[in-house]
């Protein structure tokens, strides 16, 4: 069984992002970039499925600038077999990402596509669900457990108030939540080996997909800052302030 794992190059989650002074976006020049953390979980899950003998091949796909090869290499070092880079310098919205991935899925024929539930840059939380719709596949979003057997995937999902399990006919889409697994660090020998694994580079036009954005960014701004308040000296003072000053209890 073949698995497809899309990985996105994003600003590293430890970086405090800065809004550009002209309000057109956030500063990404000279900022540390990494694989989207939810995508790392997706790669890890795919590698575990291969280690269990359920999957036979893992294809990592990234859509982004030529530097997104680095994120594909990370996936290859974790255990993916080969990579595909859909190279574009433009902003690609989830609808276009889903269409590009659909074209790749139709070419590659994976049984499961595992995606991060959301990218930590645009926080859209949409691509997996959209890809599932375009393919007419079932979707197991926000997964905390995935079991694949007998042509189906049982996916336990993180929902409000607890967990829900759905059974999906394969082929299917899974999107990862935080507790699904803890991604491994690639070992040095595996990083070396990953350098020899193949990465194919194509363009969005090769897949016949129009990536023109549907959303025009009017402006990007800093959120309103909260004023730091006061320090209180004791539990008694705190409770008194909450009762008499803030009047919230």
């Amino acid at each position, binding site marked *: 069984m073949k698995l497809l794992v899309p990985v996105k190059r994003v600003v590293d989650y430890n970086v405090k992002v800065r809004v550009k002074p002209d309000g057109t976006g956030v500063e990404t020049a000279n900022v540390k970039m990494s694989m989207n953390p939810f995508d790392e979980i997706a790669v890890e899950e795919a590698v575990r499925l291969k280690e269990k003998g359920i999957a036979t091949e893992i294809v990592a796909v990234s859509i982004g600038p030529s530097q997104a090869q680095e994120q594909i290499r990370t996936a290859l070092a974790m255990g993916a077999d080969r990579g595909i880079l859909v190279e574009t310098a433009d902003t690609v919205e989830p609808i276009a990402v889903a269409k590009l991935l659909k074209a790749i899925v139709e070419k590659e024929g994976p049984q499961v596509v595992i995606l991060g539930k959301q990218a930590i840059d645009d*926080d859209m939380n949409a691509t997996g669900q959209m890809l599932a719709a375009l393919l007419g596949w079932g979707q197991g979003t926000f997964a905390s457990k995935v079991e694949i057997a007998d042509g189906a995937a049982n996916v336990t999902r993180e929902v409000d108030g607890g967990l829900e399990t759905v059974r999906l006919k394969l082929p299917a889409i899974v999107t990862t939540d935080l507790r699904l697994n803890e991604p491994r660090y690639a070992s040095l020998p595996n990083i070396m080996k990953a350098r020899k694994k193949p990465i194919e580079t194509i363009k969005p036009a090769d897949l016949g997909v129009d990536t023109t954005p549907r959303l025009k960014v009017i402006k990007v701004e800093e959120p309103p800052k909260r004023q730091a308040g006061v320090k209180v000296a004791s539990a008694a003072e705190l409770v008194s302030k909450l009762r008499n000053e803030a009047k919230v209890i």
Partner: protein
Amino acid sequence: MTVLVLADHDGASINQPTRSAIAAAGKLGDVHLLVIGPEAVAQAGAKIAGVAKVLHAATEHLLAEPAAALIQSLAGNYTHLLAPGSALGKNVMPRVAALLDVQPISDISGIVDADTFVRPIYAGNALATVQSSDAKKVITVRAASFDPAAPEGGSAPIEPAQPAADPGVSSFVGAEIVKSERPELTAARVVVSGGRAIGSAENFKILDGIADKLGAAVGASRAAVDAGYAPNDLQVGQTGKIVAPELYMAFGISGAIQHLAGMKDSKVIVAINKDEEAPIFQVADYGLVGDIFKLIPEIEAELNK
């Protein structure tokens, strides 16, 4: 303009994030509420202030695939399709958007006009104002940003909606929903949260006294969840629940960016931490530096006075 809102519910009542989505929808046009579930939920929906009509599709479970197909079949009558930014809305609405060839607009925190919306990006560290060129808008609503519509006061007619054919690719297996006496995190007036400093799952109970006294929901930071001290559905933050209660009390939470993104719209924030340099103090209205294990019983005792 007429706007369709997908209701999120627990099989009996409609939750507060849905009422926030109804309030947001009311800024755009007439509001129709789609209830996929039992009749009793449709009746509850009909009473919500600002709902002009309830569409009711009777099904046992709310799976994304048939729900999206149903909404697609209804979409012709609407300019905007909304849902709360809950696990349900996030699951279903992007699927609807793809079926309609629309780029969804996730987690809006503001409405500028019928095409233009504000939404947080980068874990709430920036706010983007975006204008959609799609003919229909598919939107999820950040509940904390809109005051919910009143649960009573309306008397909308209920019409049956014909469920679309189930694509037959998914089925419901089971659910484990935690039953709690406490209010739901996203709807609570007071939230009492613990961080990694709590130290263990056993210690997490130390927050119960204050929570009981204040009728509060209990929350946790991602660090506490990752350490296994609290279940994931208590997680407050960009990767968990977004809350905006009247009072948010953070015990032993340092205030990582991703946590602040989930609670900084709270009306009053209290931080109790032994590290006086902790970033949480920069957003707190009231800060108290000290050992939480000493201060929690003291605060509890003061509340009982």
